[in-house]
Each structure stands twice: as C-alpha cells, then as structure tokens.
C-alpha cells in the first residue's frame, strides 16, 4: 500500500512527515530552513522528487528553495520571482514574498507558476530555477486597480493564489487574488478576464469593483475539470463551466456555523464531494472554530447538503484557525484528508473525514499543508 508525505510549511520553517501505509506512524523530517517564513512547499507530481519551497525571513527578501531529491538537499533559485524594474521616474511593486506555487501542465515538464504578495504571477521554465513575470497578467490594463491597495489585502499583505492549470489544456489557467477576484486565461496567460459573477462582497461595497472581491481559495475538481469550488470571504461557491456564474452553495450549511472559512478541498475522484473547515465570520471576524467547537464539513452532493465530521477532535474550547493552503486531500482510496492549524497542530483522516487523529502538535504557525502519495 502506498505511503504519504505531508509537506508542512510554517512561519518558522518547513517539515516533511512521512506516513506508513496505515497512517499510524509519521516520521518527522525537519525543520528545514529554521527561522524562515515558508508560505508553501510543493512536490512536483510529474517527477515525484522535485520540491519547491517559497521562503523569506523577517529581515531578508524572498527566495525559492529547490530540491531534486525530496528535500535531501536544497539549492536556491538563481532568479526568484521579481517584478520588472520601474522605468525612470515611475513606481513599481517589489515582491515581499512568494505565497503560492503550482506545478505546470504534465506536457510542460519544468514549468511552474508562482503567485506573490503583492499580487503578481510568475512562471519558471526550468524547474523553478529562473522566474519571469507573466506580463499578460501583471501588466494588463487595470491590473493595479484590480489589486487594490494594502487595505484591500489580507493582514499579511495582498496575495495572488489558487493558480490552477487545466489538466486537459495547458493554455487554460485560473487564479485568484485577495483582493482582486478570480481570473481566467485561455491562452497560457497572455490575456485574462475576471470570473466574479454571482460572488457576494461585503455589504456596502460595489461588486463591479474587482478589488473588493476576496476569494480565499479556489480548487478545480480533478475528476471533472469543468467544476470549480471556492471558499470566499463571503461564502462557499461552485462554478460549473461553461457557466460564468458562481452559485453560493454555503447557504445550506447550518446557520449557527455559517459558510465562512479559508480552505476548500475537492475529492480527487468524486466531483460532488468537497470538504471545508468553517470559521467564525461574525462581529470581529475571529476566524476560529464557531463556538470553540471544531468540525470539518463535507458535501457529497455538490453543496446541496453538508455533513459534520468531527470524530476524534476535542469537543470544546478549541479555537483553531486553518489557513487557505493548510487543508488538502491525497489521492488514496479511501481519501486521506489533512489540515494544519495556526496553533501548530497537524490533523489527519484516513477515511475521508469520518475520523481524525492528531499527527503532531507544537509546530510553529502552520501556513500550508500538501500531501503526496509515494
């Protein structure tokens, strides 16, 4: 039976947890880059051994660390993501940190995409060693207005995330920005158009202003690439292409839980199934488990209904926050589901969310969790 590697990126470094076939034992490998803020660490599914990690420290500028032996040794990118230099007398942004990494299409070995804070899209053709801005996105008309100002981003800076490559068509890309909305390209990033129809925004704001749209996480269903799920600042949505109108499916969540959160995870083989981790979005937006009672919610019918999954969790006084990159599923049967908390706990379910066990406690604040089957 295959094993699983969990790639855990934290505010103070990165860890790999290698699980046995039964998920009963996890061997920790780390910390890697102790003291570095690691926003994302991703294993290339095309070769099963190339790892990229997006890092910076509290002082130093951002970089990309690369490994070709699953973390046995690391190199640094020769040219990390960086915006074009401003013309004389003009201003231009600089990358504070790389936030998101996505491997390219299987037909393009070596291709990777990166999303940054502030919002920028970058591409590498050489396994993450050299990165160049995707001018079709970064320099498109209205790009800066859609990105908004610092007040339109997350407390840790505005971000470009959820970069998705259509598995059927390498020209077809999606991405999302907090803030800035969801965008689509059908020509490998040369041209883009927004996909925000049907999405709510905070009451009082103008939904035609892209800067006020805050998609927290967008995922494509591997088994039905025309279906996207989204956890937004303002609810849970589904989009079935070619429609361009998102449908709010979170209204069927229990009213005392709501449909606010950061991550959303589709099932690898069942497009009607997805998992979310709801968080309190009322009053001061605490973004912790509603009522201090943790629960994953799963839908098996495309969002028509949701089932609470909390067996194994502590029952009360639990104030977890789970960030947008910190929940993921593997491709095993049954599917393993995993999430990490900002309080440094890593949880795993080997039965599609029915029961949960804690893999490790006391890590630094967890920013991202990825799962790879080995």
């Amino acid at each position, binding site marked *: 039976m295959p094993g699983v590697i969990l790639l855990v990126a934290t505010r103070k470094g990165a860890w790999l947890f290698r699980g046995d076939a039964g998920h009963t034992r996890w061997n920790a490998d780390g910390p890697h880059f102790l003291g570095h803020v690691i926003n994302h660490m991703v294993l290339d599914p095309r070769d099963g051994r190339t790892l990229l990690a997006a890092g910076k420290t509290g*002082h*130093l*500028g951002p*970089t990309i660390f690369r490994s070709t032996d699953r973390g046995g040794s690391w190199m640094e990118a020769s040219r990390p993501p960086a915006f074009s*230099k401003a013309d004389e007398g003009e201003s231009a*942004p600089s*990358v504070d940190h790389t936030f998101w990494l996505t491997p390219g299409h299987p037909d393009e070995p070596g291709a990777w995409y990166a999303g940054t804070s502030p919002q920028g899209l970058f591409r590498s053709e050489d396994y993450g060693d050299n990165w160049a801005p995707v001018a079709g996105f970064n320099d498109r008309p209205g790009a800066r207005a859609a990105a908004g100002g610092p007040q339109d981003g997350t407390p840790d800076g505005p971000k470009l995330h959820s970069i998705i490559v259509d598995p059927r068509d390498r020209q077809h890309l999606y991405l999302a920005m907090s803030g800035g909305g969801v965008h689509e390209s059908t020509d490998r990033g040369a041209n883009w158009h927004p996909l925000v129809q049907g999405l709510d925004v905070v009451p009082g704001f103008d939904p035609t202003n892209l800067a006020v749209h805050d998609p927290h996480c967008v995922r494509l269903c591997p088994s039905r690439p025309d279906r996207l799920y989204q956890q937004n600042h303002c609810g849970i949505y589904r989009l079935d292409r070619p429609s361009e109108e998102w449908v709010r499916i979170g209204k069927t969540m229990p009213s005392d839980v709501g449909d606010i959160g950061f991550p959303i995870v589709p099932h690898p083989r069942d497009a009607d199934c997805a998992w979310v981790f709801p968080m309190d979005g009322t009053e001061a937006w605490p973004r912790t488990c509603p009522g201090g009672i943790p629960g994953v919610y799963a839908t098996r019918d495309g969002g028509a209904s949701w089932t609470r999954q909390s067996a194994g969790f502590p029952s009360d006084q639990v104030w977890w926050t789970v960030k947008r990159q910190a929940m993921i599923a593997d491709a095993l049967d049954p599917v393993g589901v995993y999430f990490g908390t900002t309080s440094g706990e890593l949880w795993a379910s080997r039965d599609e969310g029915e029961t949960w066990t804690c893999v490790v406690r006391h890590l630094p604040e967890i920013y991202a969790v990825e799962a790879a089957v080995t």
Partner: protein
Amino acid sequence: MTRVFIPSVLRSYTGSGEVTTKGNTLDEVLTDLDRRFPGLRFRIVDEQDRIRRHIRVFVNGQQTVDLDCRLAASDEIHIVLALSGG
C-alpha cells in the same frame, strides 16, 4: 578593497562574517558580492533597488539607503538586521 561585515543570517552565502569586495559605490559592492555569492543581493535589495525594509546598511558607521553612495577602498560596510518582531 572594501571590508563588508555580514550578519549571521547571510553567512550561509559567504561562509564568514567578513568579506572584502571591490567597487566604487555601494551598488557595485553588492553586485560584486552577488557575483561571488549568488542570490545574496536580492535578499538585501529588492528589484526596485531599494534596501529592504528590515535591513540596515552602514558605511563607516553612518546609515545609508543610497546605493549610489561613493566608497573608498578603506571604507567599512556593516549589513545589519533591523528589529522586525518575532
């Protein structure tokens, strides 16, 4: 040759806390360092040629943010980490 004092967090690049470089300006010194220790400059200076927010550079004890500042061979440069919280 200009002496440059390297903070601990950058010694994975240089291998030591002090290196000597050549260059008539701070920009040329950092470029020389990057040629010898690839990647070092971008950790200190962003793509718009601004010294990063939590880095301080001192030339003979005087802080500078000007990459074009002129240097003499006898100058000493200290690259220092500013406070940036936990």
